[in-house]
């Protein structure tokens, strides 16, 4: 019998993926069924679904879920609008388009941590740019501690995240725009359709697919976002921006409670998975 050596080419990939992705994922599921407090326990102790029962009654979990949903849907809504505007602008021919495109792509080169620090500085209550600008314009009459109040802290996070990632939506939508055949517009022009009509009856319907792709990707990423929030607010003030990823991370590494932390992570993962499935379903229905 001759062995098909072709499979050997896949071996290193699977080995790495197994050790660093699949095994830890399964292990997190397993730890979510255990009590494992690193401060005094050597080995995890199996306790069945106990962590999940605790989670259902955990007020911090409910507020975290709420923060996650607010952050995700507001950020994505802002990004879809900004992204669409970016795509429409970049799809036009004008002098300096290349420079504008390069500028708009720059946030891609900014690590999330740096993005967070930049905006944290901008929103700083004493030396930040926002207070200075708004004060000079007469919009506010005294400096505000933007990151110290729950609603403005969330707003600051959303600004930072939309600043960093709207361009991804923009690029996907731009790809969609560029795949719309030019003759469609020509034909509509001959029929006397104006700019607005062409946009509503040709551009928007044909952009649907790209729109749903961008929406799905960004929703999942925002739902699991961690880096910028952790650096900018750390979940504060008073837990108002403590999204689920931060709640899970703090439960692991601040409280060293690996069992309960895993439980939060698993529930978060499953919720994200359901969200992704819902979008994919929507995509299917819309395309039919």
């Amino acid at each position, binding site marked *: 019998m001759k062995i098909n050596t*072709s499979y050997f080419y896949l071996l290193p*990939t699977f080995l790495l993926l197994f*050790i660093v992705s699949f095994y830890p994922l399964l292990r997190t599921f397993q730890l979510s069924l255990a009590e494992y407090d690193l401060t005094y326990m050597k080995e995890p102790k199996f306790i069945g679904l106990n962590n999940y029962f605790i989670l259902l009654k955990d007020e911090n979990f409910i507020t975290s879920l709420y923060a996650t949903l607010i952050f995700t849907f507001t950020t994505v809504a802002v990004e879809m609008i900004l992204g669409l505007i970016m795509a429409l602008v970049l799809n036009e021919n*004008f002098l300096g388009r290349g*420079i504008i495109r390069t*500028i708009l792509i720059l946030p891609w080169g900014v690590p999330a*941590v*740096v993005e967070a620090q930049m905006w944290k500085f901008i929103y700083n209550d004493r030396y930040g740019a926002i207070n200075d600008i708004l004060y000079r314009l007469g919009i506010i009459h005294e400096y505000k501690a933007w990151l110290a109040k729950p609603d403005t802290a969330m707003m600051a996070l959303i600004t930072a995240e939309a600043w960093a990632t709207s361009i991804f939506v923009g690029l996907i939508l731009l790809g969609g725009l560029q795949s719309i055949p030019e003759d469609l517009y020509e034909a509509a022009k001959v029929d006397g359709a104006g700019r607005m009509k062409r946009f509503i009856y040709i551009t928007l319907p044909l952009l649907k697919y790209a729109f749903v792709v961008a929406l799905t990707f960004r929703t999942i990423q925002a739902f699991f976002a961690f880096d910028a929030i952790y650096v900018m607010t750390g979940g504060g003030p008073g837990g108002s921006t403590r999204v689920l990823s931060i709640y899970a991370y703090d439960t692991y590494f601040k409280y060293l409670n690996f069992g309960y932390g895993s439980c939060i992570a698993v529930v978060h993962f499953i919720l994200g998975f359901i969200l992704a499935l819902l979008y994919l379903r929507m995509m299917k229905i819309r395309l039919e």
Partner: protein
Amino acid sequence: MKINLSRLIIVFVAILLALFTLFPIVWVLVSSLKTRSAIFSTPIEWIPNPITLASYQEVFTYRPFGRIIMNSIIVGFSVVFLSFIVAIPAAYALARLRIKWKIPILMLILSPYIFPAHTLVAPLYLLFRSLEWINTYQCLIIPYTSFSLPLAVWLLTIYINAIPKELDEAARIDGASNLKVLLSIIMPLLKPGLVTTGLLVFMGSWVEFMYALTFTVNEQAQTIPVAIGSFYGRYAIPWGEISAASIIAIIPLATIIILFQRYLIKGILQGGLKG
């Protein structure tokens, strides 16, 4: 006249978007060039006077930022190198070799793409702790390589598929083995694909935060994002140093983006999104 008006609006919106995008970067750049007392003064001086590089100097003298940059570079290049070694054969097998269940295998390779970092970080921490790997390069290089694989394998498969099959069939008639075809036919033609993939993988490694935060302790293995995320001063947040370090962290990626934007945009549109 009407056309000119709509053109004017487009250019106006474009400039607004560009200003919004540039604003934080310019703010940090300006702040990085101020003296310490100018940073902590109100109202804000929007044009630094005098201009000074003191913050940049402090980042390298008061803090081990030189070492930290080196860590990021070493980790980044190792990850690109390793992910090539692992992903090229896999992509080659998926694009060219006779293998059953190609689609399910590809799906399986792509699936970790959606595993959020915090669902993996705890077991990995326990694993690296038991191996006594905490605060070493390998506890960053190995996970980063693995997390780059979905993107790398997927992109390289697309690039190999785009190479005409007739070329390897001709070589096979001459008796070349699978490995020979990969090395002598595919590899030389794969260069553009390797550039795009390598850049995206490097960028991913350069910006990663959660694992670096968890698996490293000090400048022995810490990378740039962790260092910048944890700059604290004794009395006040050292905004000058944070600004200088931020500019240093942005420069390599901004350069890559400006030079290679066409490749990169094509890459993420094909391979999904992960910066």
